[in-house]
């Protein structure tokens, strides 16, 4: 603010309505500020205390219980199991979505004439409520459903996806990739459009082939989009819930219970709010660490 030379700031008198300006600014900010303060900052504080208490809306007496809730969370095999499932979900769906969205954006960019038609079509799953997507795919994944019909064309006998505990999570991942690809494709297309044509012309003059051009020009210059996509996806995927709620209710045999599902189950089905709050803090730490590590990797690795 006071970066100007001293003499200048001395010559121009401060406006007389400086106090009024402060008041005005706070008045402008306060409506949004109030709700952000309540539902973000105060919420964190509440959640923190909650995770050390046994408060519950259906209980008369409550008190602080120290680390009991964290001990309960860490001692629960269902919680560990949900972590394992969610980690699997993240580990498969994030690369799958990123790579297919990137591939689709590269391919789609070549289709000059129909580019916007394809983009519109691929985007429709993004604007479909997740509940509706999940409801449709319950039928796609039946034994005689659309997925197995396609598989049978290439001679594979498909499983009963959602009732098979070794396949249910994979089914949810497949559906999630299907639903998310369009959105990230649009982001990659925007990133591709930002790469100056000059680089490609230069590469052509130097006789670089498609692969080299992609590897040495497109990918390095697309780095910001890739960082954004991967981090957004990882944060979102750790909190996966709707798909499980609609398609499998965490089953069969707990195979599709996600961390968020466990939090939901503890908080709103057993009303163990404190345990659920503790679990949400553990999840938060995991998401935070993942994000920090990714940022570090992406920023330290100089590709070009």
């Amino acid at each position, binding site marked *: 603010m006071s970066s100007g030379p001293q003499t200048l700031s001395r010559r121009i008198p401060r406006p007389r309505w400086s106090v009024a300006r402060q008041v005005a600014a706070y008045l402008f900010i306060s*409506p949004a500020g109030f709700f952000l303060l309540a539902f973000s900052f105060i919420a964190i504080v509440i959640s923190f205390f909650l995770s050390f208490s046994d408060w519950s809306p259906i209980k008369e007496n409550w008190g602080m219980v120290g680390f009991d809730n964290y001990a309960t969370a860490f001692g629960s095999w269902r919680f560990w199991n949900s972590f394992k499932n969610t980690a699997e979900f993240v580990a498969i769906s994030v690369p799958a979505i990123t790579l297919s969205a990137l591939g689709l954006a590269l391919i789609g960019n070549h289709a000059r004439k129909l580019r916007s038609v394809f983009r*519109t079509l691929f985007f429709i799953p993004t604007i479909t409520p*997740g*509940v509706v997507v999940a409801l449709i795919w319950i039928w796609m994944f039946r034994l005689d459903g659309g997925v197995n019909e396609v598989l049978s064309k290439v001679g594979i006998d498909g499983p009963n996806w959602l009732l098979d505990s070794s396949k249910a999570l994979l089914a949810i991942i497949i559906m999630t990739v299907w639903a998310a690809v369009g959105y990230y494709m649009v982001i990659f297309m925007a990133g591709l459009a930002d790469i100056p044509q000059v680089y490609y012309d230069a590469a052509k003059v130097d006789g670089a082939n498609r692969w080299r051009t992609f590897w040495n020009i497109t990918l390095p210059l697309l780095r910001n989009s890739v960082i954004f996509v991967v981090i957004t996806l990882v944060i979102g995927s*750790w909190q996966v819930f709707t798909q499980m709620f609609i398609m499998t209710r965490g089953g069969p045999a707990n195979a599709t219970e996600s961390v*968020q599902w466990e939090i939901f189950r503890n908080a709103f089905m057993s009303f163990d709010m404190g345990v659920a709050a503790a679990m949400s803090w553990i999840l*938060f730490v995991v998401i935070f660490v993942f994000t920090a590590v990714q940022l570090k990797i992406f920023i330290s690795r100089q590709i070009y």
Partner: protein
Amino acid sequence: MAVLERLTTAEIESAARKSRRRYLLTNSGWMVLVYAVLVIIALATFLPYLWMVMNSFKTEANFYKDPYGLIPRDWSLKSYLGAVGYGRMGVFVRNSFMYSSVVLMVQLFFNSLAAYAFARIEFRGRNVMFLMVLATMMLPGAVTLIPTYVLVYAVGMLDSFAGVVVPSFAGAFGIFLLRQFFLNIPTELEDAAHIDGAGFFRVYWQIIVPLAKPALITLGIFIVLSEWQSFIWPLVVLQDIDKYPITVGLALLRDRNQDFWPQILAGSVVGTVPLVLLFVLTQKYIIGGITLSGLKG
């Protein structure tokens, strides 16, 4: 250069034609591949929707006889009548519409007010406060879900219309997006207005808001999309079926009505069509907005 000079123009032209033909040939092979992949993925995207729409027009008997047939034998609106009557889809769509429009209006107003202050008014603590706003974007919804429930419980708004919408009354993303847009509006007009004695609110309301219409529309679409799709919060906060939005309503219909899928599909169509219409009408803004947020993130 010496070589070039020795060639006649005719020779150069024929060589160029030849290389162009070769380029087009390999390129058209490439294009066939490109379109083949795109068409296959387009079909994979489109077929589940086609299935949903077509089966929503089947009768129950016909659906269970042939659940994967894409053309109904006896076109019927019975599922839609059932979805609206027994399934109360009309009520749920109306609720979703109300929730979305209230959140839309309040958020646009509150966010733009704050964004204006951050972009235009110099005040003590501006940078710190803006960083705090941005910091709230880092909070995963999983962490705020339970304390939000506790807060709404504490002020006695569980199971109420207000309880659904109030936690979404302000959004850091919206403030950030609008501030970026406001910063790019030239200040001359405002300076003139200030010299003529206009106060901050007048400048905000009569200059900034009209000029920022594209950004407000973009943000508005994002708000409606996310509010219409929201599931876990209304699921948690509401007990009374008559207050359910379409997403929770569909989940309920499925629970109550395991056997009558055409009705569930009809409800799904009813719950999706408003968003598809919104998307088709405002595609330019959505794609533009994603581009903006994607690059800024």
